[in-house]
């Protein structure tokens, strides 16, 4: 009481920066949480939300920035350290040890058992057998256990990173209820979710991150969603070369790819669409609406449980990505970690598909390969100064390599899953132009993107997937961001949906997205 | 082919004597006997001496007519492994265990257990300290002493000797070291390289060759005047020849490959002088015979340490005419080059050369 309290904030962070190799996860993030509030952390995929949470809980060291708790500087050196300081997180990925039973997991974190039981009951899970191995417990229950465990410690600041994404409706409801009840005390909750409706239901304020920077703090009131979305998206994209849209002439031309009633367990529920040569078809969806499964099936990594896929009129059934590639369906993964050989050269990465078939195992025609690779590098304007090891390339160049691989071997149909994630505007433009050029040359492109503003730049047409179903189809001309966003959140027209209906839709979507095979 | 018949009668050595091939005919396999013999050899699978030792044991068991079946454990292992092998033999309810010990003391607990179960235990080739076990061994001290004395004499009592040994800690290796040191003490002008402790080949031909190659490659070979080997002789000779060096006098065992080198049968070993000291692998057969004697209640006279020493080892060089003649006699072409040519011990074994080469025990 002698020292003047400089702040009444519970947790304050400012100027947080973090880079992973060439990837800038956080540039300059700040966050101020008051006691007794539920504070939303918002941002598009890859904005840096999870990274910020990890830094606040000591799971990751920041490169720079200051953090203070109740006005005193405090940097957690490990999650255990943060926990002692009263900061606990439920991370986006489950943090339970799969091979230990629930009880042991609780002992590991020194969680008081009665408290845990109490919160578990509150969260709607009764009679959980604590002797069960975590890996035998359904994912949704794991998430709730994770939450109950965090609540049981009674932390000052509780962070929930997309905790509700994997929960069915009734559990989501209980979770939101429990979180809502935290309001007003001297404890706070930091809540991350992509579901506006949840934000609106429990949060007091929202901090919005964009590309690693805090771009605004908004009081959550009815109608503030639009403002948040606006902040998340940032300024309207600077002038980009208008993609030359060829006139569509689908008459007579056979569709390259026909998908009919495709189902995949609970994730996809009867998806149908057609993709024509010369066309770029966009797919828009929130996280986890079944787009991953759709692309995995088309790329031969996963098998559908029903429905039909036809390529050039012939029904196909892929058992391996090699089958899809032979059928002319090539796949550009969003996660570069899945697509690249990080320790190999640009050349080897690009030339990889050349050699995969057994009869191409023999000597390589270096001249021909070199020419093809060089052509692709030029087409994509890849900076090859660090060509000896792909992992030393910048993120954008790495992404170009994953595309160049298919450009070099000739593309008929390309499946691009968020190909511009985390790359700069110039590179994005190059990729857009490339996709248009490919289409102009007769290729067909199916592209999922989390950056809605891309849609109008590259696509001819767009389908919106929600809860494993195609819920809308728009022409590029009508697919401006607000429209797409609304469609993606399955909000009809400009008006907000009545809350109950929205909750139901969200529940349905979540149930569809419920990944029970994980772990 | 019965080459034994042609060479054997002319061998008139006083100690280790060839039986005439007809001699054991009275002991031709009769109806199966009643005893069960266990045999344990813990290392040297592929080593000619050890292989022949196993074959002589099998052959002796066969011709004795008293053995119902044999359990032959012949594998590479350590002392702990041999302990477990002997315990397996106890559990298999054999009447006698003939074994080549890996260590003079390590096996004692299992040997006590065997005796408690009424099983006779016979150590062959080297001795154990267990008082109840009958040791049947070559006089390894004398073996080493004979060869070393010859070598030092050849060298005129001065110069450097490369000293290669067997398996560290093996009883036979320890005894041979004693004999070597005894001869060394009598020849103060001799210096041992690389050290007084010598180098260990582990009685592994591959290791021996490797050591020899390294030794020659390091240039040290050019500074020595003699080599003593613990039976890894032909490998060293071949290494020297392979390096194109001239030979120095060498001591080896009576392995056929070495005998042939000494005789220069192939014509490639001009200038090689050496001596082959007998180390009969027939100790395996003799061990089985001894075991049966014990089982039949015969008394066996043993000396110090409950040991039956084989007749003093013979040694023949290719310097004296007599030695050359002897080497030519004992060179038995049907024997594998890495087997010792002393495939029998007069009076202590009864099988024929063919039976030994067939390497089949009772019921096999």
């Amino acid at each position, binding site marked *: 009481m002698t020292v003047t309290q400089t702040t009444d904030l519970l947790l304050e962070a400012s100027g947080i920066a973090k880079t992973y190799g060439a990837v800038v996860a956080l540039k300059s993030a700040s966050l101020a949480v008051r006691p007794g509030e539920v504070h939303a952390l918002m941002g598009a995929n890859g904005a840096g939300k999870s990274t910020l949470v990890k830094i606040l809980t000591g799971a990751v060291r920041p490169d720079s920035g200051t953090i203070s708790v109740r006005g005193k500087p405090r940097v957690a050196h*490990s*999650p*255990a350290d943060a*926990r002692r300081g009263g900061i606990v*997180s439920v*991370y986006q*990925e489950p*943090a*339970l*040890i*799969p*091979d*230990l039973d629930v009880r*042991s997991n609780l*002992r*590991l*974190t020194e969680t008081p058992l009665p408290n845990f039981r109490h919160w578990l009951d509150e969260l709607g*899970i*009764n*009679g*959980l*057998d604590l*002797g069960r191995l975590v890996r035998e417990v*359904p994912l*949704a*229950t794991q998430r709730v256990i994770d939450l109950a465990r965090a609540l049981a410690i009674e932390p000052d600041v509780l962070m929930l990173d997309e905790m509700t994404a994997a929960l*069915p409706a*009734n*559990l989501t*409801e209980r979770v939101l209820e429990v979180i809502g009840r935290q309001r007003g005390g001297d404890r706070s909750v930091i809540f991350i979710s992509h579901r506006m409706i949840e934000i609106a239901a429990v949060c007091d304020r929202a901090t919005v991150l964009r590309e690693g920077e805090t771009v605004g703090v908004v009081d959550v009131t009815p109608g503030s969603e639009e403002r948040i979305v606006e902040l998340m998206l940032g300024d309207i994209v600077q002038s980009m070369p208008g993609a030359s849209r060829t006139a569509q002439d689908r008459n007579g031309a056979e569709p390259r790819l026909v998908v009919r009633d495709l189902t995949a367990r609970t994730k996809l529920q009867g998806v149908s669409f057609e993709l024509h040569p010369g066309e770029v078809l966009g797919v828009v969806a929130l996280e986890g609406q079944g787009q991953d499964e759709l692309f995995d099936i088309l790329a031969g990594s996963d098998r559908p449980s029903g429905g039909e896929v036809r390529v050039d009129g012939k029904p196909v059934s892929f058992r391996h990505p090699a089958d899809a590639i032979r059928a002319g369906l090539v796949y550009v993964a969003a996660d570069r970690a899945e697509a690249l050989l990080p320790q190999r050269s640009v050349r080897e990465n690009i030339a990889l598909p050349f050699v995969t078939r057994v009869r191409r195992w023999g000597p390589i025609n270096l001249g021909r390969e070199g020419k093809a690779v060089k052509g692709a590098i030029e087409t994509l304007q890849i900076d090859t100064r660090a060509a000896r090891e792909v992992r030393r390339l910048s993120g954008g160049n790495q992404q170009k390599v994953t595309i160049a691989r298919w450009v070099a071997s000739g593309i008929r149909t390309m499946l691009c899953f968020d190909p511009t994630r985390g790359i700069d505007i110039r590179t994005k433009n190059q990729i857009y132009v490339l996709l248009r050029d490919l289409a102009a040359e007769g290729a067909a492109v199916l592209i999922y993107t989390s950056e809605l503003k891309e849609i109008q730049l590259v696509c001819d047409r767009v389908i919106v997937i929600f809860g494993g179903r195609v819920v809308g189809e728009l022409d590029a001309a009508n697919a401006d961001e607000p429209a797409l966003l609304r469609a993606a959140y399955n909000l009809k027209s400009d008006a907000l949906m009545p809350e109950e209906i929205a909750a139901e839709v969200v529940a349905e979507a979540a149930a569809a997205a419920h990944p029970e*095979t994980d772990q | 082919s019965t080459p034994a018949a042609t060479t054997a009668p002319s061998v008139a050595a006083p100690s280790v004597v060839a039986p005439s091939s007809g001699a054991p005919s009275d002991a031709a396999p009769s109806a199966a006997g009643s005893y069960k013999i266990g045999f344990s050899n813990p290392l040297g699978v592929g080593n000619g001496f050890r292989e022949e030792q196993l074959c002589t044991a099998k052959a002796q068991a066969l011709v004795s007519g008293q053995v119902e*079946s*044999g*359990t032959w*454990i*012949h*594998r590479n*292992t*350590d*002392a*702990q*492994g041999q*302990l*477990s*092998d002997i*315990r*397996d*033999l106890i*559990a*298999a*309810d054999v009447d006698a265990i003939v074994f080549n010990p890996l*260590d003079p*003391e*390590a096996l004692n*607990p299992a040997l006590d*257990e065997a005796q408690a*179960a009424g099983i006779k235990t016979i150590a062959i080739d080297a001795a154990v300290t267990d008082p109840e076990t009958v040791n049947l061994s070559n006089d390894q001290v004398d073996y080493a002493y004979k060869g070393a004395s010859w070598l030092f004499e050849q060298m005129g009592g001065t110069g450097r000797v490369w000293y290669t040994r067997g398996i*560290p*800690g093996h009883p036979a290796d320890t005894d041979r070291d004693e004999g070597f040191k005894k001869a060394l003490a009598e020849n103060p002008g001799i210096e041992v390289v690389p050290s007084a*402790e010598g180098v260990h080949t582990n009685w592994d031909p591959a290791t021996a060759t490797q050591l020899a190659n390294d030794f020659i490659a390091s240039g040290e070979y050019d500074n020595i005047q003699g080599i003593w080997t613990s039976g890894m002789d032909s490998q060293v000779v071949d290494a020297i020849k392979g390096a194109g060096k001239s030979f120095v006098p060498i001591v080896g065992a009576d392995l056929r490959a070495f005998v042939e080198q000494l005789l220069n049968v192939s014509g490639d070993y001009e200038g090689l002088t050496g001596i082959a000291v007998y180390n009969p692998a027939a100790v395996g057969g003799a061990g089985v015979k001894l075991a049966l004697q014990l089982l039949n209640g015969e008394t066996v006279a043993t000396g110090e340490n409950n040991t039956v020493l084989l007749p003093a080892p013979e040694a023949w060089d290719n310097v004296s005419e007599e030695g050359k003649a002897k080497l030519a006699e004992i060179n038995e072409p049907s024997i594998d080059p890495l087997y010792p040519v002393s495939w029998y011990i007069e009076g202590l074994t009864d099988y024929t050369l063919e039976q030994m080469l067939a390497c089949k025990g009772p019921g096999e």
Partner: protein
Amino acid sequence: MSQAAPTVDATRAGTFDAIQSALRRNTWTLGLLVFLAILLVFTRLIQPTYGATGIQGLANSVLPLALAATAQAIVVISGGIDLSIGSMMALTSVVAASNMQDQSDLFSVGVVIGVLLLGLLLGAVNGAVIVVTRVPDIVVTLAMAFVWSGCALLVLRTPGGGSAQWLEDLVLGPLGNEWIPKAGVVLVLIVAAIWIPVSRSRFGLSLYAIGSNQLAAFRSGVSVGRTKIFAYMLGGLFSALGGLALTASTGRGTPVPGPYTLLSVAAIVLGGVSLAGGRGGVFGPLIGVVILQLIRTDMTFLKLDPNLATVAQGLILIGVVMLGSLLQQRRSRA
């Protein structure tokens, strides 16, 4: 809107469920026990005299490998692998034998304690090098296998030394009843005395945690590096116990490592420990060791070439792992 029954399937607690889940979790170990029982019956059939002596011999034969397998199991559970166990056993064995020879009982007790501390130290070095250099476990422990066996040769160039009589008596012969081998009792006591408290402690949980999912463990507040070093220290401790067992049963120290490293890997895989870490325990591997030895014994009884036992061990090893991965693949497909 709120439904009556939770959609999430959460089993109710109950003794029946508890037993069931305990059974399910230990299926492999139980299966091994059944297999062992069958093997014992089979042994008795082919060798009607197999009895107390056989059991005594069995216990004495498995002791060193059993301790080695325990060491390996602990390290593998924590997500590593230790290829230096055989060398550590050789080193501790020669240190024990060379210091105990012709010494008083009291002194030899001191030596035993010293050797156990040495084991902890060797393990700590292994673990620390892995944590500090971030070189894969398999490379570091392979290299350390050279180092430790070199050190063993520095201590004793040839087999030698001696063992205190009490130490030999500790593992030799029966305990009261002729069917109860001291070696077996000692083994179970040692393993239980060390492993049960460890596995029940938070540290034991951390071992499983870092083997199961290092990231989740870190986020659960486990100090990954320290736990890893502790795991290797425990491995070193059990290797030292294995070395002492070698000294006790042979009365000597042998500087050349026996076949324990690779056989310990075989034994733990047979015993249900996942090489990926996080799964298994030490009792499965102990049964695995007994099975491996009994197969060899049976081959002796059947008068089969003992080398066929080696073939059988290899085939069992491969077969078990193939079966495991087949089941795994089926489960993930279902």
